[in-house]
């Protein structure tokens, strides 16, 4: 169970608000009194809806769109209660304004942690319903009938028993003088005409014809273009650079030096990149210059048996171990990972003496705005952030290091400047998923079922920096997510051995956050115990999940659809894993085959998910496919290494990611559910690596405990 899980949201919300810059905002629907509608002005019953006299209704999107389909889902929720069709609306990015647009569960304007749907499901429906009630009230008053005698449909108020009918646009002046309703009853799910039905994404057309605007596409008037070289060494600095070779390049106008980077400004990014390549930059590598991968791994290994801070403690593990030995111990090692979103980091900034404008795609609007204010010294009200579509987030855009760097550069440039990271800079200056190790220790009873479970989590505390409210007594609560397993084991203990990345190497949130960190060791560990017990791994899990009906439901559906009970040919294997987090429950089965050379191929992945009330089933399928591909990519290829205090890899040649020909068929099955909606953007990722490792074991008898999966290890079987 993690802080991203809805089952302990009451606690986590309090913790979150402690860490948030803002308290309590977004918990209300953001009704604004609007005394009157001036001529030509739209009716704005709340911060999310603007209804003009003519034309389409504008929905303002409180969460950002980075592929997860939230714009369509939010529009569906608003449209459901406002009683309009999705073809009657246009969408708009919210400005940086946490008072109006904070996620109610997070208390800040953040899109992450699979919180969007969970946060706004009630809020958006109420926003739509309140507007509808005011429009009906206006029509009823005009017609001299009770509001109960009217209903709304397809952007009109109609008299239920009569023939009168008024378009919303014709009612906006009257609706603006209606009192905003205190009580806003919502439709039962059985009456939904939009929610739960497969809907086409509203952002598809512009993403298919090239008109969609990502942060990198911002072109404010007078913009210039910068390429950036950041000191490759953690915490290193610029020593010196002669600007002449860059200034000699056609189109280059300026070389900007800041403490940790050099930027070349030109009239196009190509000329800026050419200018940057012409420079001989001398770096001061700083105190981390000797840090090597071997040293970082040694520190992690040393922490396996070092000191740790206690977290979960249930029963008496020591006693159980003494009574039920032998004690089985497994150590799992996971590598440093990048996000590698397809849109490289970029940010366009215009610093003026009296204000600052930022054009960027960010998951964390309020911090982006604050970062520009801090760098410029301007009051935050003087900073305008124009948010954009995000060319992938995955947690990378939950940090604002890019805004900080671009603003530092922009302070020295006249007019707006767009700073675009090269892919190499993007990979070498990520907010990394750092090394994560786990030691799992367990004992089995006479029946082969686990009696005790210890799980030591070794890794950094991202939350200590990123969201201190997510820590308790020095323990990073996200880092511990699910470490204690969902399984019925009487004696359980988890602890946290904090091992940070070297100074200056930023660590951050990565798709699936704590769940992606802990579910691999948990799901591989439980598989190892099943093997020791001589019990089928599906059956083993089933026996231990009788108290978890939703997780069990997903497990059974995945097993059935994957044909778990059907024998496999020699050289094939199936592996299973479950994942419970973000208010959702997933199970997946991976099937692998071995070729004659000991190389394996992923033949098929079958996933079943219970995410409660589905908003858009087509998006659920897409997001599970997406999460699986992201997890598969990491399991097969994800590994960043460090030498000389710098990241070695730089582009898709030496830091490869999954491509279409390596992608197996991915089947997604949804468990029907009337429970509150859970998150769907991340729950597909954590189970992939363990399902795959467990399948490889079944096919080869070889337990691999280190990611990424090394084909060379398999060949040595």
């Amino acid at each position, binding site marked *: 169970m993690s802080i991203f899980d809805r089952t302990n949201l009451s606690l986590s919300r309090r913790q979150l608000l402690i860490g948030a810059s803002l308290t309590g905002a977004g918990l209300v629907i953001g009704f604004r009194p609007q005394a009157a509608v001036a001529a030509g002005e739209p009716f704005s019953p709340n911060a999310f809806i603007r209804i003009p006299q003519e034309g389409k209704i504008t929905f303002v999107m409180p969460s950002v*769109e980075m*592929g997860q*389909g939230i714009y369509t889902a939010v529009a569906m929720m608003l449209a459901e209660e406002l009683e309009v069709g999705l073809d009657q609306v246009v969408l708009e990015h919210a400005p940086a304004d946490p008072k109006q647009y904070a996620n109610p569960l997070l208390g800040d304007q953040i899109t992450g942690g699979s919180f969007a749907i969970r946060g706004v499901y009630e809020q958006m429906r109420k926003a739509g319903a309140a507007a509808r009630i005011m429009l009906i009230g206006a029509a009823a008053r005009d017609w001299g009938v009770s509001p109960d005698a009217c209903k709304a449909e397809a952007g009109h108020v109609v008299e239920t028993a009569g023939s009168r009918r008024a378009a919303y646009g014709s009612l906006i002046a009257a609706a603006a003088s209606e009192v905003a309703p205190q009580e806003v009853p919502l439709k039962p799910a059985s009456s939904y005409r939009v929610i739960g039905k497969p809907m*086409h*994404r509203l*952002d*598809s*057309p*512009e*993403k*298919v*014809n*090239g*008109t*969609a*605007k*990502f942060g*990198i*596409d911002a*072109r404010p008037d007078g913009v210039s*273009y910068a390429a950036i070289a950041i000191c490759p060494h953690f915490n290193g600095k610029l020593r010196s650079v002669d600007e002449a070779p860059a200034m000699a*390049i*056609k*189109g280059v106008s300026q070389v900007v030096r800041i403490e940790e980077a050099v930027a070349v400004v030109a*009239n*196009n*990014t*190509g*000329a800026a*990149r*050419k200018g940057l390549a012409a420079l001989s930059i001398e770096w001061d590598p700083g105190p981390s210059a000797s840090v090597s991968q071997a040293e970082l791994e040694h520190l992690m290994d040393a922490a396996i048996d070092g000191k740790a801070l206690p977290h979960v403690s249930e029963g008496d593990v020591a006693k159980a171990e003494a009574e039920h030995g032998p004690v089985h111990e497994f150590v799992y090692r996971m590598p440093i990972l990048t996000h*590698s*979103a*397809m*849109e*490289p980091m970029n940010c366009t900034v215009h610093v003026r003496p009296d204000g600052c404008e930022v054009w960027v795609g960010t998951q964390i609007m309020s911090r982006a705005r604050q970062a520009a204010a801090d760098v410029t010294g301007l009051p935050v009200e003087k900073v305008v952030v124009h948010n954009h*579509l*995000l*060319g*992938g987030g*995955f947690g990378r855009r939950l940090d604002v290091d890019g805004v900080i760097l671009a603003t530092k550069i922009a302070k020295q440039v006249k007019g707006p400047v767009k700073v*675009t990271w*090269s*892919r190499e800079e993007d990979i070498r200056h990520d907010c990394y998923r750092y090394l994560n190790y786990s030691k799992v220790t367990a004992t089995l009873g006479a029946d082969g079922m686990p009696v005790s479970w210890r799980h030591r989590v070794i890794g950094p505390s991202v939350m200590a920096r990123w969201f201190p409210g997510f820590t308790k007594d020095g323990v990073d609560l996200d880092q511990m997510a699910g470490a204690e397993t969902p399984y019925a084991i009487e004696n359980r203990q988890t602890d946290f051995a904090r091992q940070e990345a070297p100074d200056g190497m930023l660590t951050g949130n990565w798709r699936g956050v704590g769940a992606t960190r802990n579910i691999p060791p948990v799901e591989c560990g439980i598989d190892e115990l099943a093997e020791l017990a001589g019990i089928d791994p599906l059956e083993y899990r089933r026996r231990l999940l009788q108290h978890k009906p939703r997780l069990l439901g997903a497990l059974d559906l995945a097993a059935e659809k994957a044909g778990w009970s059907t024998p496999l040919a020699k050289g094939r294997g199936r592996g299973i894993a479950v994942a419970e987090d973000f208010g959702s429950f997933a199970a997946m089965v991976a099937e692998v085959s071995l070729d004659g050379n000991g190389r394996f191929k992923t033949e098929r992945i079958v996933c079943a998910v219970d995410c409660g009330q589905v908003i858009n089933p087509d998006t659920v399928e*897409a997001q599970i*496919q*997406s*999460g699986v*591909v*992201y997890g598969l*990519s990491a399991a097969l290829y994800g590994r960043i290494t460090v030498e000389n205090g710098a990241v070695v890899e730089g*582009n898709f*040649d030496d830091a490869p*990611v*999954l*491509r*279409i*020909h390596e*992608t197996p068929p*991915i089947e997604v099955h949804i468990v029907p559910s009337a429970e509150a909606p859970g998150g769907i953007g991340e729950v597909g990722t954590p189970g992939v690596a363990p399902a795959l490792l467990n399948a490889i074991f079944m096919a080869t008898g070889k337990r691999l405990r280190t990611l990424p999966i090394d084909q060379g290890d398999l060949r040595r079987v």
Partner: protein
Amino acid sequence: MPYNLTVNGKSYAVDVDGDIPLLWVLRDTIGLTGTKFGCGIAMCGACTVHVDGQAARSCVMPVSEAAEKPITTIEAIGDTPEGKRVQQAWLDIDVVQCGYCQSGQIMSATALIAANPTPTDDDIDAVMAGNICRCGTYPRIRAAIKLAARG
């Protein structure tokens, strides 16, 4: 020396060094931002355009090489019958997620279908393996190409 580019049927005189990649001339000089930057080394396909009817990685193609040849970008690929079919299939199947790589995916898919109207899975892999998608839209890309080929 200015170069004459013909992009989507329109002529542009651009005054840049000849070794500047076509990508940046399209995006920054001309202002057609549908073509995307992803890697700069022709490894990800986000920058794919058609030059002389062939798919080309504009991040490594010098502008001097593209001059005087017809260039088609995502903004106008819908004017070709294959491009129109591919875009419609992308809409019908809702391929996109973040969408950033999709201009390049559509340009590669259109070139594939123009050259091979009935591609097999292996044909699709051979061409589309050059285009990375981090959102994992690959299963739907495959389905959409087959739909477009049938259409």
